[in-house]
């Protein structure tokens, strides 16, 4: 495999991204970046299908506007990884900050542990593009707020409470959220409803749970145990009833 190694120590994100772009241009199939420490925008707007291994803690907006590549992070990710991402994958061996997968339209984000506030806010789908966010643990408040499409899965590993925060899926008008384990219905936001999953529903998520297990080298069996619940829009026009014409 054509592999390139970049030492990011002390490197600003712009020259770092220039090195990445150059490597992609030179046909690198794999780029390993060591000593990443807070550099933002890694893979921003990047096209192609290179695999990027990030050793360290990347800064905010990892994979923003990204279209194709796969970024594997050995560490936590900061604010909004996968922001407005178009396609490709992020695999995060750790947790993320707030607004992960913000406005994401396609591709997938796998987070081994937990995510912060407003995860998957305004995720949307379009034709063949369907964004997927799979989280090993759980999420903070306002998960899937304004969600317009795509799929979010919380696997609630390590005995975390499935969901214990306010405003889940507030304003959801497309897509669905799967949560392993039950949670209080009063936590649902405006326009969201909760349903227990049947086997047909499960067929939609199982491929992603399998992929999650593979990325993190986990046994997939326990990840599918127990009852899943899904959150879907009560209507595709959550605010339609708010207005009248002049």
């Amino acid at each position, binding site marked *: 495999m054509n592999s390139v190694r970049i030492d990011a120590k002390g490197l600003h994100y712009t020259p770092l991204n220039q090195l990445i772009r150059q490597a992609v241009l030179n046909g690198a199939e794999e780029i390993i970046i060591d000593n990443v*420490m807070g550099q933002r925008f890694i893979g921003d707007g990047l096209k192609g299908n290179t695999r990027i291994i990030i050793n360290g*803690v990347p*800064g905010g907006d990892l994979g923003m506007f990204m279209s194709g590549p796969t970024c594997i992070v050995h560490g936590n990710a900061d604010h909004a990884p996968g922001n407005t991402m178009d396609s490709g994958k992020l695999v995060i061996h750790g947790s993320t900050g707030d607004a992960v997968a913000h406005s994401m339209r396609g591709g997938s984000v796998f987070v081994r542990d937990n995510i912060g506030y407003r995860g998957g806010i305004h995720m949307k789908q379009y034709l063949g593009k369907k964004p997927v966010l799979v989280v090993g643990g759980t999420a903070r408040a306002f998960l899937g707020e304004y969600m317009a499409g795509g799929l979010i899965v919380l696997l609630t590993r390590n005995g975390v409470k499935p969901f214990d925060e306010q405003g889940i899926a507030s304003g959801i008008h497309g897509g669905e959220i799967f949560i392993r384990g039950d949670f209080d219905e009063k936590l649902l936001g405006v326009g969201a409803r909760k349903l227990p999953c049947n086997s047909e529903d499960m067929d939609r998520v199982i491929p992603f749970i399998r992929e999650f297990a593979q990325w993190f080298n986990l046994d997939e069996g326990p990840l599918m145990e127990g009852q899943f619940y899904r959150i879907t829009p009560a209507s595709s026009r959550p605010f339609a009833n708010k207005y009248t014409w002049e």
Partner: protein
Amino acid sequence: MCGIISVIDRSRAMMDGSRIREALAMMNERGSGEGAGYVAYGAFPDFKDYYAIHVFYDNIHETKDDVDAILKKWGHIEHEEEIPTFDVPGIKRIHTPWRYFFKPDTSLMLRSPTPDEDIITYIVMKVNESIKGALIYSSGKNIALFKASGWPEDVADFYRIQDYNGYIWLGHNRYPTNTPGWWGGAHPFNLLDWSVVHNGEITSYGTNRRYIESYGYQCSMFTDTEVVAYLFDLLVRRHGLKDDIAVKALAPPFWEAIDSMPSREREFATAIRLTYGPALMNGPFAIVVAREDSIVGFTDRIKLRPLVTGEYGDRIYISSEEAAIRVMEPCVENIRMPKAGEPVIGRVYS
């Protein structure tokens, strides 16, 4: 606005300023090079019982006599000096920073349970309000504060903060909108024992300011952050609330959450909200407040700003970004993002 970082060593072991300089500089993307600052607790062991009054003078000849007169009227100046600074290309000398080690004469403030603090507060408000060209920007015991307009590393080198030691350090990288170029606008803000660094904007400032002014505080820094120092001073020192309760007053739970609490808890939370409604801080913020024995970090009620904490040995770190903590301490453990409004408290061992 801005990036913040803070650390406390709970065994009061001293740290010099070199590492926080690196950590803050790592977050330069969060700033604009127009303001940065640091505060160190435990920096003046030789004068630890004196209030370290820090003043920015526009012009020594013009105004220093007036400040000296006020200080002498209210107590005794044990020692005074120009704060040593060193030329750095990125810093334009706008002010002359000066420090006094001062002891108030408590017999002059009758009928007060805390005459020392009341005299210092009075002097700070009086000077900042009435003496043009002088600004008291720090006034705590054993506390050294360093701030100016510039990038964090330049401000650090301007004061050579690596030559100072502290068991608590706070750092702040500013992105100003309203008062760029003014050294007084940089963080940390300090009053007495309290120092504050703040990221965000307090949309309730107008309400908070009017509330705090009704207790005799004067907001003279043209920014929303000073109000936090005054609110803590009022709630914790004067009203005797514990740190975590004060945070509950400033960033209380939502009524929906309060309504579903068990009755005793509900009663208490309701009382806090009713009593301290005007102190509730709204808008996006992440704040770290330090005092002599602790640091407290917290965010707004819906967590619109980032805050990350970590631990290593006796040290607790609170910052806007994990990477900044890792710059200070590569082996940091227990990295965590506290919940909205959840206070993270690091307190020295008693």
